[in-house]
């Protein structure tokens, strides 16, 4: 693609990075944790391994100059630097980012601060957090109340605020912080962004230590606080807060499928947040909250509500890539349940493609792929074998592989044993009811196989081979298959057999034309999209215009010359004739 608009690039880049690198680590892992134990193991295991890779391999000098990477390195170097002080420093270094975000009104800095959470998260303990809080807030400052709430939530309410001249270690870190960013010292009062940032850290700590009830209560308080402050620079932070809020609600007993689960209770809050976000054009929160609401409805199987939500809201176009992927997944799920397979297929394909390809979001890709496979089967297609060969997917998809085999062959007996064997897996994946609907497809495939292999077969044999209940059933089923265009055959009722019609020449039908049309359409769509995706450098067109003008002038001159030449020729001709 030709060069992007120079001043737009960094923003896009920042947005993408924030979306791609940070969220899967923190979010997906949490997201899938409650739902899929099997996948969850994989996703949870992955981040540390990635971190170790990061610290062992010298980090490629990224333009972003990652604070997090340096830290990981330092931490790996040994215990030379006190890890506690180090972590506190890391936390504090983010304040500078947040300050800049506010001062320059640029969301990129907040995103960067958010991104560092995943690296801080591994070293964060309630003690460290309490220390950081107590050093940041003065007991007299306006937001001391917030700080106290946070301390209480992490069970460190005895720590007093404003402890700067405390033990030597703190002086040490303070001076370091001051040295690093002098800006920090001048700002006396703590900005709300920092409050919320601490709030998110508190949520993370509570979530990691599985204090779900406490976390839920604290999140409620935090959400209240966010709603009372109207600052655009808080947008990306508040999206994160809502995410943890909903996560806590989801994991607090009674667990989701029960209608008494707290997730039902948080719906009004989320809806209010959505309304506010839309009014304030707060894309981050809007996208996050829509996804959360959809997930919320689907967890309690309120399909019609989810459908209504989708039809009444518009998902922001420039939302982070990961939110788009999630949104598409949930949308595809809703459509699949509503029997709108074509739409479901479209959304799920997009979701699997948009899912981050790195290993940290494996759970999401697996879940989306599973659902996509089932939808493909329901549409009567047989999924590609290569899908099952990917090393990251192979084990997770194994039951589905068996299922596809049974459907492909049309063996009803196999199909039913597979369902019975893997019922728990399918139930956990939420695909069980969809898979039950496959039964008719299996029968249809079976009949098609029969019709292809025999030119004439008695209904009795069909009944036996396909394990159908009775001959009468077989007759009705075959008749229906003929009507639906599954096979080309005729039934003879008196003698009780099915006679397959000669398979006509495919090229005489409209099928090749249709396939051709589909391909052309795909190519055209690709062309259109690539044209739309093109970016042109600013003001380049003026240069071109100038060039064009020059060219035109040259052309005109040339035309003139030719004209003159023509005249000459004419004259010549005239003379010639005259001669």
């Amino acid at each position, binding site marked *: 693609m030709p060069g992007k608009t120079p001043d737009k690039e960094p923003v896009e880049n920042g947005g993408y990075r924030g979306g791609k690198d940070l969220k899967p680590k923190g979010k997906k892992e949490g997201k899938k944790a409650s739902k899929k134990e099997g996948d969850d193991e994989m996703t949870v295991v992955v981040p540390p391994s990635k971190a170790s890779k990061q610290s062992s391999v010298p980090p490629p000098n990224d333009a972003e100059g990652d604070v997090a990477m340096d830290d990981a390195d330092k931490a790996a170097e040994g215990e030379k630097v006190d890890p506690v002080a180090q972590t506190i420093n890391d936390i504090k270094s983010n304040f500078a980012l947040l300050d800049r975000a506010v001062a320059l009104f640029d969301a990129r800095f907040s995103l960067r601060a958010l991104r560092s959470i995943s690296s801080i998260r591994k070293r964060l303990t309630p003690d460290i957090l309490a220390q950081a809080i107590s050093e940041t807030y003065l007991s007299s400052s306006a937001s001391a109340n917030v700080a106290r709430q946070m301390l209480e939530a992490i069970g460190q309410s005895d720590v007093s605020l404003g402890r700067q001249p405390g033990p030597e270690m703190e002086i040490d870190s303070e001076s370091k912080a001051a040295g690093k960013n002098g800006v920090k010292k001048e700002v006396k009062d703590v900005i709300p962004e920092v409050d919320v940032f601490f709030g998110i850290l508190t949520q993370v700590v509570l979530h990691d230590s599985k204090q779900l009830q406490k976390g839920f209560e604290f999140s409620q308080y935090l959400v209240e606080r966010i709603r009372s402050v109207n600052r655009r620079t808080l947008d990306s932070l508040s999206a994160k807060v809502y995410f943890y809020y909903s996560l806590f609600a989801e994991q607090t007993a009674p667990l989701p499928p029960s209608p008494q689960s707290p997730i039902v209770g948080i719906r009004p809050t989320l809806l209010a947040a959505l309304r506010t976000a839309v009014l304030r054009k707060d894309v981050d929160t809007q996208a996050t909250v829509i996804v959360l609401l959809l997930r919320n409805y689907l967890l309690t199987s309120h399909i019609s509500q989810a459908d209504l939500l989708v039809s009444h809201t518009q998902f922001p176009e420039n939302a982070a890539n990961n939110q788009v992927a999630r949104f598409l997944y949930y949308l595809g799920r809703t459509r699949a349940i*509503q029997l709108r397979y074509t739409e479901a297929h479209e959304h799920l394909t997009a979701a699997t493609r948009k899912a981050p390809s790195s290993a940290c979001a494996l759970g999401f890709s697996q879940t989306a792929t599973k659902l996509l496979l089932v939808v493909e089967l329901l549409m009567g297609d047989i999924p590609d074998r290569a899908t099952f060969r990917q090393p990251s997917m192979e084990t997770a998809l194994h039951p589905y592989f068996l299922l596809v085999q049974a459907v492909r062959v049309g063996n009803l007996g196999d199909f039913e044993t597979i369902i019975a064997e893997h019922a728990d897996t399918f139930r956990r994946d939420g695909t069980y009811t969809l898979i039950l609907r496959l039964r008719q497809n299996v029968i249809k495939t079976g009949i098609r196989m029969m019709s292809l292999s025999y030119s004439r077969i008695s209904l009795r044999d069909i009944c036996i081979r396909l394990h159908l209940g009775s001959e009468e059933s077989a007759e009705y089923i075959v008749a229906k298959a*003929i009507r639906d265009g599954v096979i080309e055959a005729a039934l003879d009722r008196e003698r009780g057999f099915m006679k397959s019609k000669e398979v006509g020449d495919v090229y005489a039908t409209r099928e090749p034309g249709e396939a051709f049309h589909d391909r052309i359409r795909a190519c055209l769509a690709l062309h259109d999209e690539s044209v739309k995706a093109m970016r042109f450098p600013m003001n380049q067109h003026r240069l071109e215009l100038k060039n064009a003008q020059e060219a035109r002038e040259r052309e005109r001159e040339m035309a003139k010359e030719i004209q003159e030449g023509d005249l000459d020729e004419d004259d010549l001709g005239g003379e010639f004739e005259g001669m």
Partner: protein
Amino acid sequence: MADRELTQLLARLKAAPPSAPYAETAALLSRAKLLLLQLGALTPTATSSPALLALARDTYEQGALASIRAKDPDAFTRYVAQLRPFYELLPVGGEEGERNKVTGLYLLLLLTQGLYGEFHSELEALSAGGGGVDVEGDRYLGYPVRLERWLMEGSYDRVWKAMKKGEVPCEEFGVFSEILTSQIRSEIASSSERAYPSLPLSSTKSLLFLESEGAVVEFARSRGWIVKDGQIFFPSAQETGEEEQEKEMSQMVIENTLGYARQLETIV
């Protein structure tokens, strides 16, 4: 006061024979609803007491069943919608009331109206939510689920058998059998048109679940089939269809080509 009166009313409603005239039940029901209004339990709130909720739920359930008996699907759908919040609020595992029966009826209604999307949404809600209701094992819920499966795969004979007396879980479900019968009959007819070159009259009777050959002839006439020498011939819908298809196809080709031309023009 009011709640005692309501309990009495409910007892009367429940005791009333299924054949009781709808007008009578409707009168009782509207009195019950007035009482609910006085008690402030017409619409559920998180604060209303479980006992009241149960009373209100019972009232609506009786209303739903009565409207089904009166063959009033709109009223029934309304009652189901009103019942839904009560089912969400009342704890699972407590006294279930007629929940499964009403839900089963609702599923069947959706099935007969051909609203398969809603049917499956409802089913999904049942199997995921509600604390592990065994959908297929339940007497009331399993029935519509099985019917749907058979209808989809085309085992119409099983549907027919399931609609006979004794197989139906309770009489309210029987209300739908008439609609279902005509539904499967037209399904069978449309597939027979394509599947058989011709059919003998005598066996068509059993194929279409009709009572007599006279009924077969009548049915054949209504579908426009030709009856000749004890055989039914289907007017070859294909021929006229083929011509149309041909037309349609050439139209499609023209349209596509024009489309390509237009696209090419924009590209070049």
